[in-house]
């Protein structure tokens, strides 16, 4: 029922390599600064519209950790509801959560109808473009990124889990952050994340560097570091790479380390994609 999600306060995304956001005011002595910040908020993922059972179980959770919920902003996620689940009693739900000390701030993953109802309760509609409404994800939605299954070839002793970029925000709107272009070399120790879309790099990616994207990753240069596409679980995401020398490649959590990449696809242009549960590396 509970898991963490990140979302940006502004539809902006900052990192040291990106340009700074332009200040909103250009007067001699600014009274405020406009900045982007990222917060991690608990998400309550509704699996039922029956408010009585929600109230029951939520009460149990709150009893376990009353301090955790006191004055905590909470997001309501509707993507786990079965289709045609009926109307959600937002006033009831909001009242219930406030009663437990939570501050419901917004919803995501609902239908237009549900969004309207939520807006009437002054709840914000948060980006839901990347929450999949699929019944298969209903049972175990504890992690937004599925833990990577080992590459099909052999079980790997150290399960390197591509971190779901804890401090990085999720794009709110696919139109805003659907592309990210990097033109300078990505150095060892640097991480570049393209939330909600594709990442293109037209420079070398060094050993120890990390590329992450919710969509595809394109590298027009040697890839010597790590590349993780489909960070939010998009199994159709692919990695395109001109010269594969990677430490690790991964699509939607299915990964291969350098050792498990056949030599014949190293150093040549390849695409990397998921075929069922198998992460395939193919020459192009």
């Amino acid at each position, binding site marked *: 029922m509970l898991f963490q999600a990140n979302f940006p306060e502004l539809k902006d995304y900052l990192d*040291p390599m990106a340009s700074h956001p332009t200040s909103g005011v250009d007067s001699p002595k600014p009274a405020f600064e406009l900045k982007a910040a990222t917060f991690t908020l608990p998400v309550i993922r509704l699996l039922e519209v029956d408010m009585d059972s929600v109230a029951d179980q939520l009460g149990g959770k709150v009893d376990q950790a009353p301090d955790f919920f006191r004055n905590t902003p909470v997001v309501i996620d509707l993507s786990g509801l079965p289709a045609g689940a009926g109307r959600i009693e937002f006033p009831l739900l909001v009242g219930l959560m406030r009663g437990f000390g939570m501050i419901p701030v917004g919803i995501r993953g609902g239908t237009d109808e549900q969004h309207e109802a939520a807006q009437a309760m002054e709840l914000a509609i948060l980006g839901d473009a990347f929450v999949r409404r699929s019944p298969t994800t209903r049972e175990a939605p504890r992690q937004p990124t599925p833990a990577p299954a080992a590459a099909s070839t052999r079980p790997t002793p150290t399960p390197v889990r591509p971190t779901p970029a804890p401090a990085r925000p999720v794009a709110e709107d696919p139109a805003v952050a659907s592309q990210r272009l990097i033109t300078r*070399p*990505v150095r060892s120790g640097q991480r570049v994340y393209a939330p909600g879309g594709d990442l293109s790099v037209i420079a070398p990616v060094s*050993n120890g560097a990390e590329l992450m994207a919710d969509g595809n990753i394109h590298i027009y240069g*040697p890839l*010597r570091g790590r590349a993780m596409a489909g960070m939010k679980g998009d199994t159709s995401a692919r990695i395109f790479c001109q010269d594969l020398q990677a430490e690790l490649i991964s699509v939607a959590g299915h990964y291969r380390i350098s050792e498990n990449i056949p030599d014949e696809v190293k150093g040549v242009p390849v695409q990397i994609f998921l075929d069922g549960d198998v992460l395939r590396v193919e020459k192009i």
Partner: protein
Amino acid sequence: MARTIVITSGKGGVGKTTTSAALAMGLAQRGHRTAVIDFDVGLRNLDLIMGCERRVVYDFVNVINGEANINQALIRDKRCDALYVLPASQTRDKDALTKEGVGRVLEELSKGFDYIVCDSPAGIEHGAHMAMYYADDAVVVTNPEVSSVRDSDRMLGILSSKSRRAERNEPPIREYLLLTRYSPERVAKGEMLSVNDVREILSLDLLGVIPESKAVLNASNSGVPVILDVESDAGQAYSDAVGRYLGEDLPHRFLDIKKKGFFSRLLGG
């Protein structure tokens, strides 16, 4: 306005201080007023390499703390009038360097100098950060082996994200690669990365390749920057590097195995 050059690497022992001394001397010899600062507080060495260790009165930390003014701390080089050394403190640690203090000293120096060469300590921690923060140009000193190359790569990442230029969104630091301790013989045997390997991995402009040379050790021991040893290959290579930094177009030398002449083979040299 002076141009601030940081000599950095990430890894220790690759030749940052030797390079700082040589480049600073080279710039000064060409008539540019140059100051070279030792940022390795607590492990100061630059004064030894420059041969001015017996003339240190005040140091960098004294100036930062306002205990001495910059002119009291600067040591004029006896061989070249345009060159001054600002030594590090040996009794303090790197926390004595503050962003404001370093900025103040650099600003003051930039009024009277054309180039300020900052000799960075090894590592990527506070001391190294202070040395690179105000830089306009960076010379990344790398040995032709994988761990040094990787550390340099990490340092390049830090240069492009944590410097003042990066924070203010100004044009990025100009980065140059200087390959030191290069031995064409060992490259031929496959024991060392080649110039092209390193260049490809780091994708940087090559400022120079300094061959492995006994002259470097001799120069360090006697407190004479190796660039003054004009007979030595290392001295000439540093001289070329200074020329390239100043915009001259010079071919790279000392990249191939020296062909032994008939006589030297005969005499076993």
